[in-house]
Each structure stands twice: as C-alpha cells, then as structure tokens.
C-alpha cells in the first residue's frame, strides 16, 4: 500500500498492465514522449518501449478504429482520447463498430479494448475541455462505461476494464486527478464493473452521484450529517451496465433521493436513474426525486463556471427540501 493520487493510480495500473500482459498496447495523442497532457501515461513509453506505447496523429476516429482492429486481431489496446470534448469524431467508430463487432459477427470477432477519456469541468479550462457527456456513451448497447472517483477505484476499474472481454470506456474526472489521495494497493487487483459503491451508510436520504461531483456530494453529506441527518452516499461508478438493484435497495431504505451530476439536466444520465426510481420505488418514496445538475447550456468559460456547476450548497439545499417534503 502507498498513498497515491487518482492520476498516479491510473499510471500505476497502466504500468502494471503493460508489464503483465504483452498483448496490452497504448495509443493516443501525446501519450508517449510527453506522457499525456495529464501525465497519466508518464514514463510508460520509456519503460515499456515505443512498440507498446504509441503517439498518434491527431485523428480520434483513426485512433479508436485502429484500436478496434488491434483488438479483433488479439491485442488489448488501451486508447486515450485527450478530452471528452474531442471524443466525438470517434463516436461513429464507438457506436457503429466497437460496440457492435461482437453482435455483428455472433461472437466470432470481439473488441477487448479500453478507451480512457479525461472529462469534466471546474478547472476554468477553455471551450470543449470541460464536457460531461457520459450520457451519450451510457446509451450505447455493447460498450460498458465506468467512472471512478477515488484512486483505488480508478486503478481497480481500469484493470478490470483491461481484463474485460468487451469494450469499456473509462471516464476520468480531471478535477480529481490530483485532488484526492489515498492508500492504494500496489499489486494487481480489480474492482468489478457493475456494482455501485455505497460510500457512506444512512437512513434518511440517498445522495447519488459519480465522477468529480462526488467531491461536492461528499461535502454535502458531511454538512447534512452535522445537522443530524443520516445520509447514504452512492458512487454509481459504473453507468453501464447500471446497478439498478443497488440503487433501488438504498432508496427503498431511505425513501428519499437526490441525484447529482455535472452534465446538463435534460437527457443527462440522472434522468435514467430518476426513471428507474419512478419504476421501482414509487411505494417507498417519501418525497419527489430531485436532480442537482448542470443546466441545459453549453459548459461556460471560467468566469461563469460558478453559475453552471452544482455546488455543495445547491446539493445541501435540495437535500433539505427533499427531507422536508
């Protein structure tokens, strides 16, 4: 065990994967010589060789499509897209090919590959560098989508993704890369893809979130606890396949739910979860489900980030309303 940031945990996972399985290769823009714009692949090219870690031309569709070909031929490519806002040129490859080759070929050809993508805002970045469009990926049948919010989950989910016989998207919360530290096992271990993580047990209210928003969600939970509210906190971790029963079990217990995400409200993945609660928890719900999310706007530039991003305060206020209903 040693204390690591989320970024270090990811780097460690990739290092380990490259060392233990010769089929693992990395490709992406600036991931080699410069170690990635967020240094997640730092030193991996020096360590494992230029024939394992590839810098690529600036072509996202090419990166994902080439990774798919590699995967079909038996490698385990881990591709990086530099920011989620630049993943869209590859959306066609992901939804039409990566997600479908197994079905198209009735299991004859498969895509054991991983796509790592930094995402989310809150760092005053330029346009396109703060996107949270996880919902458009979680809606694709045939790909799995995981979003770690702690260093140990980051390493375990990434290693599970690399072991998975099917394609997995790993969305990495930029804002948390270096914001959180914790003890992480240096060896190889996996965090299963699917199950939610109940980060904190409670009986009065369930706060449901994922990615960078876990930070504000945790803070809100602590504030609520201080005022005597028993809060259950769920880190969804895997958006697809969704752990419906895990979420339902918690809300059946608490009877109250607030969902928190950074993406715009309409069509965001919070709608899916609220929908699940409307289907499964009607009789146990003591108050309306509420969503604390970004607004239906473009993610703004630095000066307006505060107007857009869900704050701890907004979460607490919404939770209190929900407790009063």
């Amino acid at each position, binding site marked *: 065990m040693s204390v690591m940031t989320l970024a270090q945990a990811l780097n460690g996972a990739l290092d380990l994967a490259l060392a233990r399985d010769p089929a693992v290769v990395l490709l992406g823009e600036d991931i080699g010589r410069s170690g990635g714009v967020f240094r997640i692949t730092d030193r991996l090219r020096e360590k494992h060789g230029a024939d394992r870690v590839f810098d690529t031309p600036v072509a996202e569709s*090419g990166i994902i499509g*080439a990774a798919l070909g590699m995967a*079909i031929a038996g490698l385990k490519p881990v591709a990086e897209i530099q920011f989620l806002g630049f993943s869209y040129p590859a959306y066609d490859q992901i939804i*039409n090919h990566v997600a479908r080759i197994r079905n*198209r070929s*009735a299991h004859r050809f498969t895509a054991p590959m991983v796509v790592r993508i930094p995402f989310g805002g809150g760092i005053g970045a330029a346009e396109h560098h703060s996107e949270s469009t996880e919902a458009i990926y979680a809606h694709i049948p045939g790909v799995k989508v995981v979003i770690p919010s702690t260093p140990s989950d980051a390493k375990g989910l990434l290693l599970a993704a690399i072991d998975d016989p099917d394609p997995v998207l790993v969305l990495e919360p930029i804002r948390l890369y270096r914001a959180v530290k914790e003890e992480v096992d240096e060896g190889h271990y996996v965090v299963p893809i699917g199950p939610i993580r109940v980060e904190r047990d409670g009986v009065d209210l369930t706060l449901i979130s994922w990615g960078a928003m876990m930070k504000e969600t945790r803070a809100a939970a602590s504030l609520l606890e201080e005022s005597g509210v028993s809060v259950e906190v769920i880190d969804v971790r895997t958006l697809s396949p969704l752990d419906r029963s895990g979420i339902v079990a918690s809300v059946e217990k608490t009877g109250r739910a607030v969902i928190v995400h950074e993406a715009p409200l309409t069509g965001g993945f919070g709608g899916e979860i609220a929908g699940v609660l409307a289907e499964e928890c009607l009789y146990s719900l003591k108050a309306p489900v509420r969503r604390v999310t970004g607004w239906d706007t473009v993610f703004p530039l630095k000066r307006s980030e505060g107007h857009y991003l869900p704050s701890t305060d907004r979460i607490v206020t919404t939770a209190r309303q929900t407790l009063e209903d």
Partner: protein
Amino acid sequence: MFSLVNPDGTVRDRLPVTLDEMKRLYADMVEARVYDHKSMVLQRQGRIATYAPFEGQEAAQIGAAAALRPGDWVAATYRDAALMWKAGYPWELMVLSRIGDERGGSPPEGVNVLPPSLTVGGHMIHAVGLAWAEKLKGGDRIALTSFGDGATSEGDFHEAMNFAAVYELPVVFLCQNNQFAISYPRSEQTKAASIAGKAESYGMAGVQVDGNDVAAMLTATTEAVGSAREGKPTLIEALTFRMGPHTSSDDPARYRDDEETESWRLKDPILRIRLLLEKAGGWTEEWQSEVESVAVGEIEASVARAEAVPQPTREELFSRMFARPTPPLLEQLRRSQK
C-alpha cells in the same frame, strides 16, 4: 492504367498468369455472377432483404482476393460478396446475413474475413488496426480493405491511409471505382485526376488498374501484398463499373443513361477471359457448362442451407451483446419472456 487482357481477349505482351490459373479465375467469376443474379432473384421473391449487386466488378474482387494467403485479413463492404467468398467466406453465410440473421456474420475459424461493413468508410481503419496488430505480433499476415469511390470522400479514408503510411503497416487499400456512389458520379466525388493519385499525399504508392481485367487485378494485388509484407502499404484503384442498380431498391434511370452502361458491357470481365481462353484453346462448350452447373449447384445448395437455418431465438438477441450478458440484459430478457 495497368492492364494485361484487352476487352477482346487479346493480351498486352505476356501474361504472368498460367492458363490453369486463368481457368480457375474464370470459373470463380462465373460462380460469383451466378450468386449475384440469384441474389437479385431471391430479393424480388422476398426471400432476402435489400441486395447490393456487384455485376461487372467480378474481376476486381476475384482477382484481388486471389492474391491473398489463408489467414490474411479482409475488411470489405456490402458489395464485396465475391471478394469475401474468394477469401474463404461461405456464400451460405452471406445469404444468411441477407435473410436477416446475425449468424451470417460469423465465418469459420481461420477465415479472417470480417462481416461486411455497411457504413461507408468506417471499416478501412479496422484493416489498419488488424495490420498493426500483425506487425506487432511479428507475423507476416497482411490486411486488405476494399471500398468504393464514394468512400474516398469520408474523413475515415484519410485517417486510415495516413495511419497505414505513418506506421508502415502491411495493408492493401483496394478502391473499386465503379464510377458511382449511389447516384453521385465519380467526376463530382473528387476533382482529383485519379483516386490512385491520392496515395501520394500519404507518401504511399498508388496504382490504377483495369478492374475488369482479372489477370491485371491478380498481378497488381500480388505486388501490393508483397510490399505490404515489407511494411509498404499500397492504394489500388480498380477502374470498373456497377452494371446493376446501387441496390435492389435503387433506380439508376434517375442518374445515368443506358449508353454508359452498355459501353461497359463490351468490357465485361468474364467475357474477355472467355475470349482469351478460347484463343488459348482452354475453353470448350463442355467445360463451360460444367463450370456453370458446378456454380449453380454451389449457389443453390448454399441458399438451401442458409434458408434451412432455424429462426434465431430471443435469447440470442441478448446473449450476443457481451461475452456474458449483463444483469440489465438478463432482467430485460426475463421481462421479454412474459
């Protein structure tokens, strides 16, 4: 344009292909055309869904595929049934796909031919990745990807060509320029003098070949496959023509006149080889009818086997998504059964 056999069956200088090989290629083209015509009939009879005929492109497809070794990868299109078959993909499975059954997308082990891509352009880069993997694994397999003139306008063509050249990958890019992308003529698709010429902007070799000359296609592709194995990708532009409609639901009368089509009939890829074989004394009535009956037998049997495949179960719809169905899929399957 590289060509060996003229439309009248005469040969430009000497032929690097043996008479027996030519007879084999001829027989294969005949079988392919039987499949093509049969498929149009099946479609009209409602026994298969939309079909994209390749009549006129048999030489480009059979000649190119004949240059491959077992184990080489193929990533082709909805119009490449002849190419895929010559590379080992059973007719039967292609019919099954057209019947509307995903199991048609699963060729036998050892046949490294991907089920055809129906998105224009999306599959070329897969060939690049396949070749990249083979190069890293140190094998000598290559990947051939086939696509049309229209596909060269997609950004994916550009990215695939560039990656192949940048990483010096064993890929052969085969563009069957059949002069149309549905209704859009090659002359408008790009203002480039030739599609083969596009190879240069990737630092890649490009060659324009008479796509209706099976000997030229075999020879040019064999050369391209050879350089591919040395890490030098090539773009082959096969000049050919789609004699039929874009698909069974297309009406060519809306965008091209019969004269153009008829002018290409004289350049028919099968006819010219028959003339060549006749001249070379390699063709007889008996052999022709034998070739035809073998072909008809093969195709009829393939169609029969495909149509005999039992209906897919609902379970398969769910089980095909992942190695192991996810909990939501299992729950949905349960719901679907009540």
